C-alpha cells in the first residue's frame, strides 16, 4: 500500500541503523511514548538493529493500559445492567478490573458490543431506541476528536439513549510528569505522530524549553522510527534540545484545526488519573457542562468499590519506562494475554504484550 510499504524497506532501515551507529559516540536513553511505536520496534526488531549504546525505553502511550481501574469497574457495572448496551473498542474487553473484566460481564449476560468507530455506537443507539447505549470513550488526542464528534452528533440528532463513559488522556502533561520524577533516565523523546497530527507539535515547545531535552515527532513504520532516532541522536551529540518533526507527511506545526475545534466544543481539560502512574494535573478531558446529558458519569448512579492492583504486577514501572516487561517475575508465566495481571499485557499496544508476542522465546532461551 502506498505510504506504508516504502517505509518498511529493509535496505533503508539498515542504512539508517548504520548511520545512527556512526553518529552515536556515547550511550543515550530514548523513549517512544506511543504503544503503537513500541510494537513496531519489537515486531521489526529495531532495538536489535541499533548499536548497543542506544537504549529504547517504552512510554505510557497505551490508552487501554492507563485507563483507570475505576473506569473499567464502572464499565463492567454498566454492562451488567439489564437496560444498558455497553459499546467498547475491542482492546478493552480483557482489561482486568478489580474483580472481573468486560468479557466476563458479557459471558454473564451483559450486552457488550465491540465497535471499531464511535460512529458504530451511534448506529447501535439509533437501531435500539429501548436500550440505553453507553460508549466507553477512551484514547489519547488522536481518538478524542472522533469521540467528541459522536457526542456532538448525538446532541444534534436529539439522541436520548446514548451516553459516553469518558477516559481521555493527553500526552504533553504525561511527558512533563515523567521528566519531573527523580528516577527519570530518558534523554530524548519520540513524540507520537498521530497525537501530533491532531494537536500539532507546537505543544512540545514548552517542554523543550523547560527541560532542555530533544523531542522528535515520529511516524509508525520502521523507517520512520529509525529516522526519528537518528534525528534525536544527532541532537544529543550536538548538545541540542529542540522539537523536530520526522513525520512531515501527516504532522504540521499547528495540527488539525477542525479536530481541535470539536475537542474544545465538547470537552474541557481536567486532572486525570492514569492507571499505574497516578493523577497528573491537566492531563485529561471531561465533558463541558452543555454535554452533561451525554455523560454516563452524570446520568447513571455509578458508585463502585475498586480493589487494589495485584501486587506482583510491575506495570506501573513499565509504563514509566523504569522497568522492562521481562524484569517482571510473572511475565509469560503467570501473566499472559489470555490471563493478564495488568493492562499492558492485554492491549495490542501494551509493552508487555509486545514483548510477549515478539520476544518471549528469546527470553526463554
Amino acid at each position: 500500500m502506498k505510504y506504508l510499504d516504502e517505509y518498511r524497506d529493509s535496505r533503508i532501515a539498515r542504512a539508517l541503523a548504520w548511520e545512527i551507529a556512526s553518529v552515536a559516540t556515547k550511550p543515550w536513553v530514548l523513549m517512544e511514548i506511543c504503544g503503537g511505536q513500541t510494537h513496531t520496534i519489537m515486531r521489526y526488531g529495531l532495538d536489535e538493529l541499533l548499536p548497543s549504546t542506544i537504549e529504547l525505553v517504552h512510554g505510557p502511550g497505551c490508552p487501554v493500559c492507563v485507563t483507570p481501574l475505576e473506569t473499567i469497574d464502572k464499565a463492567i457495572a454498566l454492562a451488567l445492567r439489564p437496560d444498558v448496551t455497553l459499546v467498547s473498542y475491542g482492546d478493552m474487553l480483557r482489561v482486568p478490573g478489580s474483580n472481573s473484566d468486560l468479557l466476563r460481564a458479557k459471558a454473564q449476560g451483559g450486552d457488550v458490543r465491540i465497535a471499531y468507530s464511535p460512529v458504530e455506537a451511534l448506529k447501535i443507539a439509533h437501531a435500539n431506541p429501548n436500550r440505553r447505549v453507553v460508549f466507553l470513550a477512551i484514547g489519547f488526542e488522536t481518538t478524542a476528536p472522533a469521540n467528541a464528534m459522536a457526542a456532538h452528533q448525538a446532541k444534534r440528532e436529539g439522541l436520548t439513549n446514548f451516553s459516553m463513559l469518558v477516559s481521555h488522556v493527553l500526552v504533553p502533561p504525561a511527558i512533563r510528569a515523567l521528566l519531573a520524577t527523580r528516577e527519570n533516565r530518558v534523554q530524548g523523546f519520540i513524540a507520537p505522530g498521530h497525537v501530533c497530527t491532531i494537536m500539532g507539535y507546537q505543544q512540545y515547545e514548552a517542554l523543550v524549553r523547560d527541560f532542555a531535552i530533544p523531542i522528535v515527532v515520529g511516524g509508525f513504520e520502521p523507517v520512520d522510527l529509525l529516522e526519528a532516532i537518528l534525528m534525536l541522536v544527532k541532537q544529543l551529540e550536538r548538545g541540542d534540545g529542540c522539537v523536530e518533526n520526522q513525520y512531515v507527511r501527516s504532522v504540521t506545526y499547528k495540527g488539525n484545526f477542525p479536530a481541535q475545534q470539536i475537542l474544545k466544543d465538547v470537552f474541557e481539560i481536567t486532572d486525570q488519573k492514569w492507571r499505574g502512574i497516578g493523577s497528573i494535573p491537566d492531563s485529561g478531558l471531561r465533558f463541558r457542562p452543555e454535554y452533561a446529558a451525554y455523560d454516563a458519569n452524570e446520568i447513571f448512579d455509578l458508585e463502585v468499590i475498586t480493589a487494589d492492583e495485584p501486587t506482583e504486577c510491575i506495570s506501573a514501572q513499565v509504563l514509566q519506562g523504569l522497568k522492562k516487561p521481562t524484569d517482571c517475575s510473572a511475565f509469560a508465566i503467570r501473566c499472559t494475554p489470555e490471563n493478564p495481571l495488568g493492562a499492558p499485557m492485554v492491549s495490542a499496544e501494551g509493552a508487555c504484550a509486545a514483548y510477549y508476542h515478539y520476544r518471549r522465546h528469546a527470553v526463554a532461551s
Partner: protein
Amino acid sequence: MCLAIPGKVLQAEEQNGLRVGRVQFGGIIRSVRLDFVPEAVVGDYVMVHVGFAISQVDEAEADRTYEMLREMGALEGELPPNDEGMTQ
C-alpha cells in the same frame, strides 16, 4: 489504538451536515468520515483512525522524504560489513 492507516479518497460528499467519503486501503474500500479534512478531495490520500480521516497526506513531503531515504538505502551496498553492536 493510535494507529492510522493511509487510504485513497474515492468519493466525498455532504450528508445531513456530515462529511462522508469512501476510502480505499489496498484492496478494501470503507466508509470514512471526512469532517476533519475539509480540503481533501477525490484522489487525495488521508490517514484514517477509528473511522475518521485525521490528516491529508502531504504527498510532496512524503515523496521528498522517501526519495531522501531511498538514496540513503541505495548506498547500503557500499557500507562496511556487519559492525559491532549491529545485527544482520
